[in-house]
């Protein structure tokens, strides 16, 4: 909010600090000053009033009070000398009725007869202009000026155009034309000021045309009311209408402020527009707001801020803010009365904040906490997350962070049924409509974009996916890695499988195997995956993820012009299976013997089956079996597999005879399978 330095100065007889210095003080003790600008012989300060201080500081008086508290310079409020004419009684001129006292907790009004509408004096016009308000006439300008000064929105009506005043909810179908000639449709959720029949103003927001002040106006009624902030907020949103008045009301205001502001307005008007003020004031204020009293524990004050402040200092600070110290109990406790305009102060902690900030946060000396030495607990999930990320990084993968959302189109492409997806009620764009069920769609989008610049891409992401459950939304962390390669590199599947194995082995997970995927008819999986090149990743019998190439047809849909393979792992399952322990196995002092076996098998035979047979038949002296060649060019139906078999014992050098014996056992075992033929 913009504040004029000269206007602020008018509240003080003594000189305020220079504008730059004042801004500095405000920043340190009260509010951020976002900008300063020189305007003629004045400075404009853009003060970012904290939202809980709107009630008292969306006003010059509030900021002036802050200045007074910070600088110690005495605040002087100009007084207006209002003369009332005893022969004119306000009750004879107007009746006011308030329908709901909760929504309008106070309604005050005064009447002035015989005023003269004309342009405002120059000083007033200038002050309004410096605050961004356009001068209209002396009546309207005076009301705006007192609002700026006190923070209380005020309104004036031409009394000759009104019979009575009612504060009530609008009825559906009612309409109002505002002072600036805009039409608004009203309903029950909007509070209005009405004549016998017609709306005169949208309460707390904007005045209407029908009782507008114009050059003919002679008698005016001045209104200062307090409206419920929630009601004004809702109405302002509904009508999409924000005004200087609504801004102040929707943060809440002190009901005691109306009278103060109303009298000032009457006084000012008499000065600049003449006329005779009727005696008295309409004041519908059934439940008076009294000042709050708060007990302040002095040792708690010291403990919470962490300073050794004396009672004397505390009292001085409280008084500088116009808080009253009602009583004092042996330097232990104060009873403090808070001015009603300080809506933000209701707890001891609120008082402590006032004390702390005016003591000066910069004067608080930093002290490291002294506390029981409790070592932090390791976050297991994060530990494994870090581990996984490091392994993948070392394996050449870069980490992606994607938005957690998908568009409907994206989900349809991936055949995720939309009905099962948690949906955002108010998405900013179509891309942010659904919470993502899988990290794959966005990662594939990353691939598509990066292929413009790279021939080979390896990326991964570890993050949450979402799905609807009966009661809420389930969150599931997934680890998804993608590789893509332009050109015809042999079998991306195997390359990524190697990475998956490397990762799982590094996590201490050894009993992993890859099971051929048997798609069920309703599964969407089968549509994005290459039907012949995908597998379920299992630990024991439990599926922990999926590995496969993306189907060429689907890649076309995504406009990806390179092969892509993906693995998608359940992070929770990984974390549960992962083992930190690692045990050393002594290196045998005795030499190893290596024998090779080549075997002719049908093309559909699985290597894992051959390996299993070799290991079982070979027994514990077979240390390792390596596949070193797979040759498919032999015939239409057969392929040749070649293995190195490493024999070794821990306690002796194996003799050729021993090794021959085991090798023969293996050959015999392999040849028991029909169509498997060991080549000799």
């Amino acid at each position: 909010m913009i504040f004029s330095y000269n206007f602020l100065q008018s509240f003080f007889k003594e000189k305020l600090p220079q504008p730059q210095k004042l801004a500095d003080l405000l920043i340190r003790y009260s509010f951020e000053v976002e900008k300063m600008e020189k305007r003629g012989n004045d400075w404009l300060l853009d003060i970012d009033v904290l939202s809980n201080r709107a009630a008292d500081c969306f006003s010059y008086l509030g900021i002036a009070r802050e200045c007074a508290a910070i600088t110690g310079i005495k605040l002087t409020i100009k007084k207006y000398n209002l003369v009332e004419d005893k022969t004119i009684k306000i009750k004879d001129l107007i009746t006011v009725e308030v329908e709901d006292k909760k929504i309008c907790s106070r309604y005050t009004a005064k009447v002035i007869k015989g005023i003269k509408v004309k342009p405002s004096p120059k000083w007033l016009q200038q002050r309004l202009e410096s605050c961004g308000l356009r001068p209209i006439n002396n009546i309207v300008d005076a009301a705006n000026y007192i609002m700026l000064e006190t923070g209380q929105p005020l309104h004036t009506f031409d009394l000759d155009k009104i019979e009575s005043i009612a504060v009530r909810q609008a009825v559906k179908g009612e309409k109002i034309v505002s002072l600036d000639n805009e039409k608004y449709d009203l309903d029950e959720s909007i509070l209005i000021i009405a004549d016998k029949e017609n709306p005169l103003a949208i309460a707390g927001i904007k005045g209407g045309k029908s009782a507008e002040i114009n050059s003919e106006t002679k008698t005016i009624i001045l209104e200062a009311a307090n409206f419920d902030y929630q009601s004004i907020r809702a109405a302002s949103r509904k009508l999409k209408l924000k005004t200087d008045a609504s801004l102040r009301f929707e943060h809440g205001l002190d009901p005691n402020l109306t009278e103060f502001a109303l009298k000032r307005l009457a006084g000012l008007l008499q000065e600049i527009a003449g006329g005779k003020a009727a005696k008295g004031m309409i004041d519908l204020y059934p439940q008076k707001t009294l000042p709050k009293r708060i007990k302040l524990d002095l040792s708690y004050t010291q403990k919470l801020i962490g300073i050794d402040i004396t009672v004397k200092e505390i009292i001085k600070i409280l008084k500088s803010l116009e808080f009253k110290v009602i009583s004092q109990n042996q330097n232990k406790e104060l009873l403090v009365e808070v001015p009603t305009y300080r809506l933000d102060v209701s707890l001891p902690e609120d008082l402590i904040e006032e004390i702390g900030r005016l003591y000066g946060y910069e004067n608080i000396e930093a002290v490291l906490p002294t506390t029981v030495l409790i070592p932090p607990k390791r976050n297991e999930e994060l530990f494994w997350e870090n581990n996984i990320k490091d392994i993948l990084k070392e394996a050449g993968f870069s980490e992606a962070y994607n938005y957690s959302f998908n568009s409907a189109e994206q989900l349809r492409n991936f055949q995720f049924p939309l009905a099962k997806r948690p949906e955002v009620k108010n998405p900013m764009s179509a891309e942010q409509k659904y919470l993502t069920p899988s990290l794959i769609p966005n990662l594939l989008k990353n691939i598509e974009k990066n292929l413009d610049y790279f021939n080979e891409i390896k990326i991964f992401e570890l993050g949450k996916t979402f799905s609807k459950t009966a009661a809420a939304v389930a969150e599931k962390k997934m680890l998804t890695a993608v590789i893509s390669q332009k050109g015809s590199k042999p079998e991306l599947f195997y390359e990524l499988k190697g990475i998956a194995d490397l990762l799982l082995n590094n996590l201490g997970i050894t009993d992993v195997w890859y099971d051929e995927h048997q798609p069920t008819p309703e599964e969407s999986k089968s549509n994005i995956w290459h039907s012949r090149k995908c597998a379920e990743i299992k630990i024991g019998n439990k599926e922990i993820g999926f590995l496969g190439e993306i189907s060429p047809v689907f890649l076309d849909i995504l406009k990806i012009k390179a092969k892509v393979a993906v693995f998608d792992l359940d992070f929770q399952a990984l974390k549960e299976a992962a083992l930190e322990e690692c045990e050393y196995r002594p290196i045998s002092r005795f030499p190893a013997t290596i024998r090779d076996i080549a075997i002719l098998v049908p093309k559909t035979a699985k290597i894992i089956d051959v390996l299993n047979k070799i290991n079982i038949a070979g027994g514990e002296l077979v240390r390792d079996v390596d596949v070193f060649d797979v040759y498919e060019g032999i015939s239409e139906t057969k392929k040749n597999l070649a293995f190195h078999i490493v024999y070794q014992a821990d306690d002796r050098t194996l003799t050729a005879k021993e090794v021959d014996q085991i090798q023969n056992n293996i050959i015999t075992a392999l040849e028991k399978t029909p169509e498997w033929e060991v080549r000799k």
Partner: protein
Amino acid sequence: MLKDLKELKDKAQEEVKTANSSRELERISKEYLGKKGELTQILHSLKDLPKTSRAEVGKETNEIIEFLKTEIEKKLSEMEEVDKKEEEQKEWIDVSAPAPKPNLGHLHPLTILKRKIENIFNTMGFTIVEGREVENEWYNFDALNIPKNHPARDAWDTSWLKDGNLLLRTHTSPVQIHYMEEHQPPLRIVVPGKVFRHEATDASHDFQFYQIEGLMVDKEISAANFKAVIEEFFRQFFDKPVKVRLRPGFFPFVEPGFEIDMSCMVCGGKGCSTCQKTGWIEMMGAGMVHPNVLKAAGLNPKNWQGFAFGMGLDRLVMMKYKINDIRLFHGNDLRFLKQF
């Protein structure tokens, strides 16, 4: 005979000495030590010698054979060394030429600095805790002293879900409540995490970003303690002493509330374009945990007090790496990611 042997030895030794190729040495070896070599011949002819000198000549001959073998070997390895040195001199590489690099991957910059922050707080005894990203109104707002229809809620533009009064958490603060519900103080946690705001994006705003939240609750934890902890954090994070300034701030879940400024890293506090000539950069919001928040989490505010703070991880990373657009974090352009 012995004299002849002496001559033979000298002759052979001289030949080895002057030999200048391995082939020549081979020839010498053959000539003296081969099947038909001179020394071999002598050994063969021992049987023709008188018994008296047979032993002596035999011994001497064998000694010469051994001697010669050693000499030839020595000479051979000397020559090999010379050869290799010569070979080496013929080679040359351009040390300025680029070398192939092993293909390491890259962690996301947010991960790199998130870890750094976590480690700093970890060493100060803070446990790292994560929380849900989909929350309900109670945890995201009410429990944090942000009542329904209160203007304070306007500060958090919220993305709501269609079902079940759920929302995407607008800050990491709900984790404070969850954690305090499950753990008795004293407690010290930091909470990194993804948060969401319902707002338009530009170079410095995104609708999905990352926060790091901290909470310390104990019998007597003060604003002075907070100041010390946070100064230590910034010192370690930026690896040099920095000044920290607390200003009045308002966040419904703390009282008193602070805005935390740090002396500008670029100009050292003198004022530059980065800090808009103020010498300070706004880093985080903080304060002393509001008694209503403690109550909402089931703790008695008479027994416990503490501080909480929260900062934008993205902003911190942008500052540290001089990144000028927050949206780069979710672009996943490898030309960006590979720089970290």
